[in-house]
């Protein structure tokens, strides 16, 4: 019970900060609208998705939601470094609060905000794109697994890096290739063989596929495999993140 209360306190603080940061919230809503609006509508008459089921607009808008979700989620680690630099983290560490509730509070609040963001964007996209609520719960499972994976990855990174700059750099170096080979922008099936190999090795690919299925009914990979990989990845990284934070928060 105490654990849950602490978790809520940590999350509450994140929400209070998030609410204050209007520019960030606005950016998170405007960027996907601009990208999907210009690139999606621009390329839609030019690009056809083989196998049918959806057009390019449906493809990109679902994929880009995953990208927004992931980049928001990975920001959880970023705030951890900010907290450390601002000294706030030490104030929490000296409180009688378990390390696990601190990390999980961070992770869950990020996930809550990411899921809320995606929900808002889906609502905005619904009238203009082929997105439909095909199996929203399936998409939610994909969202959950991916968020856990990305926030935890961010936390893992944050427990090892001291500077915000290096965090930005490394997070970018890792996530950009993951995004580009995950079927967010174009299908895996039609990729050149080498790229396709990378896509299959990239766990994000399975999350994108599962998420897209829930909102369009289209998928390229076996769904049980998608779900297994996404959930396993989320669980594994979360356990690692909690353990790493616990270990590294003391010298």
């Amino acid at each position, binding site marked *: 019970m105490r654990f849950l209360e602490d978790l809520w306190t940590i999350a509450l*603080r994140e929400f209070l900060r998030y609410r204050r940061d209007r520019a960030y919230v606005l950016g998170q809503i405007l960027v996907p609208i601009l990208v999907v609006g210009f690139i999606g509508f621009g390329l839609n008459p030019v690009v056809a998705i083989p196998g049918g089921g959806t057009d390019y607009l449906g493809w990109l808008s679902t994929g880009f939601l995953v990208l927004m979700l992931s980049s928001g989620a990975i920001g959880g680690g970023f705030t951890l470094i900010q907290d450390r630099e*601002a*000294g706030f983290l030490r104030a929490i560490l000296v409180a009688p609060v378990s390390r696990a509730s601190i990390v999980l509070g961070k992770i869950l609040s990020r996930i809550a905000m990411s899921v809320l963001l995606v929900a808002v964007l889906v609502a905005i996209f619904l009238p203009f794109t082929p997105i439909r609520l095909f199996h929203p719960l399936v998409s939610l499972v994909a969202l959950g697994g991916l968020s856990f994976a990305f926030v935890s990855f961010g936390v893992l990174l944050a427990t090892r890096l001291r500077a915000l700059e290096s965090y930005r750099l490394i997070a970018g170096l890792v996530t950009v290739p993951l995004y580009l080979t995950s079927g967010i922008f174009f299908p895996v099936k039609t990729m050149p063989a080498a790229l396709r190999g990378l896509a299959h090795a990239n766990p994000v690919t399975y999350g994108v596929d599962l998420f897209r299925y829930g909102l369009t009914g289209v998928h390229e990979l076996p769904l049980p495999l998608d779900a297994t990989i996404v959930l396993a990845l989320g669980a594994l990284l979360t356990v690692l993140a909690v353990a790493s934070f616990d270990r590294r928060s003391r010298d």
Partner: protein
Amino acid sequence: MSADPSPPAVLVRGLVKRYGDVTALDGLDLHVPRGACFGLLGPNGAGKTTAIHILCTLANPTQGLARVLGYDVTRDRAAVRARLGLVFQEASLDRELSARENLDIHARLYHLPDRRRRVEEMLALVDLAADAGRPVRHFSGGMKRRLEIARGLLHAPDVLFLDEPTLGLDIRARRAIWDHLRKIRAGRDLTIVLTTHYLEEADALCDEVAIIDRGRIAACGAPEALKSALGGDVVAIAMDRPEGAEMALRRVEGVSRVTREGDTARVTVAEGARRIPALLDAARPFGIREVHLHRPSLEEVFLRHTGHAFESGAAGGDGSREGAA
């Protein structure tokens, strides 16, 4: 958990902390009685912050014993954390939240009953009630410090640790913090342990100080006692006809040494202020012109015990070393 029925607020024996091949603490011993205001005094890098971090469970000792209120800081971590308040050397507030929100989050982390009332009480105590709704990033250095102190006290800790509570503040803000600390102590059963490299701060606030140098205690005691241990105060008396005055002054109680340079006799005496009337009586026949009382400062105490001047600093660990994560 603690065998001793009334353990001291802080007990440290042979504490060693090494960071790689840097030794920050080199066999530190401390005994802080309950209810005291105890000062850890030393130059930058002497190991003060490291000691505080270990006592607050933020760092593990390499060797040695450290207890807060009888609870071991490595084994009874949770018990220690629940009973201590800590004001860090560097800012540790959430700058994006308001003063009130900062305290509220803290109150929740400590599961305090009657959260709202306590938060408002603390805001009033440090004179921040009027600014409670503003984000902390708009606060001045002194206001932030006061808020940190309020946060350190919010959960009514038994021991409050303050790491350089007035570092970087101007003299007015510093005096305001001292006043607040005195006010806070009054009427509370609170032990305060503070580190400082301002000698006058230790003198103004502490009933007991430990001089820490290169990771160990060089001297410990009440500031007045430490100063008297140097042989006491010096009373300088300038006279019109000084011949023979030394003999008369030596007979006054408490006098340990008398020297004369020209027409001025320098009398080394314990508790100089109290001895002045007797000294004046003895010197009156010789025609007193001027009297000066010079009290040794903690700086001289430091010099005596470490063999080097205070500001020259110390080798050894970097005092501002932080715990990880």
